[in-house]
């Protein structure tokens, strides 16, 4: 399991640097392995420690598997510095910036190990129009690797759809759904076609 983690982590970390440069133009970011536990010391070797940890059950007891010889575990730290700002606590970032960091992380894992589908419920609520377009362009870009189901109450997000689902509720508390396939040319953010958005 440690080898699989190592490889996936490396790929995710490379992707994260690229995703941050997409979502934070001029900014930079990275994922950093670190030791957690009694000795909170940063070690980039931590995950390579236990060869005997290889096991088939990803959901099992990982506690021991990822501890190196010193009895501490591996954690993943996220660092992002938007353009012109100095590196500091993630917590101090704005609402929109935090959403972008989280989405960059999700996309980074997707590029390494895509899930069959992603359901994103109002994840763009804190984004201004410019950042919303950057996010939607990435959704269109990755739509070939994974299916995206995006729940929103914003009109701009509808422009990224291949299929639109209109949900409504009459005065009876029952949800009705009507779907409508959009012709490809109507999808303004389709792939890499169309004007830069």
């Amino acid at each position: 399991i440690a080898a699989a983690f190592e490889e996936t982590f490396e790929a995710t970390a490379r992707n994260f640097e690229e995703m941050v440069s997409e979502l934070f133009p001029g900014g930079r970011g990275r994922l950093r392995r670190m030791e957690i536990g009694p000795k909170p010391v940063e070690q980039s070797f931590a995950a390579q420690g236990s060869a005997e940890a290889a096991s088939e059950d990803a959901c099992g007891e990982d506690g021991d598997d990822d501890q190196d010889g010193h009895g501490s575990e591996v954690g993943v730290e996220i660092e992002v510095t938007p353009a012109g700002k100095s590196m500091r606590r993630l917590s101090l970032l704005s609402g929109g910036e935090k959403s972008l960091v989280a989405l960059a992380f999700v996309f980074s894992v997707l590029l390494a190990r895509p899930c069959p589908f992603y359901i994103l419920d109002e994840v763009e609520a804190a984004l201004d129009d410019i950042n919303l377009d950057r996010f939607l362009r990435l959704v269109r870009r990755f739509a070939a690797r994974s299916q995206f189901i995006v729940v929103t109450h914003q009109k701009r997000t509808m422009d990224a759809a291949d299929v639109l689902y209109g949900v409504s509720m009459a005065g009876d508390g029952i949800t009705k759904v009507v779907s409508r396939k959009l012709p490809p040319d109507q999808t303004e953010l389709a792939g890499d076609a169309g004007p830069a958005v």
Partner: protein
Amino acid sequence: MYLKALNLKGFKSFPDRTRLNFSPGVSVIVGPNGCGKSNITDAVLWALGEQSPLAVRGQTMQDVIFAGGKGQSARRFAEVEVVIDNSEGRANSEFSEISVTRRIERGGEGEYRLNGARCRLSDVLEALSDTNLGREMHSVISQGRVEQIINSKPRDRRLLIEEAA
């Protein structure tokens, strides 16, 4: 591999049987406040084994059963079926579709079914982990939860990457 269909019956604001068909690519679900969009998100999360009622905004798991509305009486059970297309054969399964059904009744009794056959939660999770739909369900981001990865502990992020691995 993709989410092909969602069947809801008695789940939250879907008292009668409702089928939603999905295609690959980008689907956008829109509508006004309170019309039932996030209930669809909850249905997928719930059907695929969510153990905490809080994750689907309830206090008990029975809270997901349609509670009645104007001129509609409450239902006695909720059932959701998630159908995943496997026609590319990527999952560890000979079926061209993987269907997971979950059901709960007013008294709290429930069951899971995998391609129609009753099974345990662990069977469902095993079938899903083959499709890289992990237990962490990090591919479903509920409303208001997008920032969670920022607030999560370094250890939890490692577990998420491990599970994707």
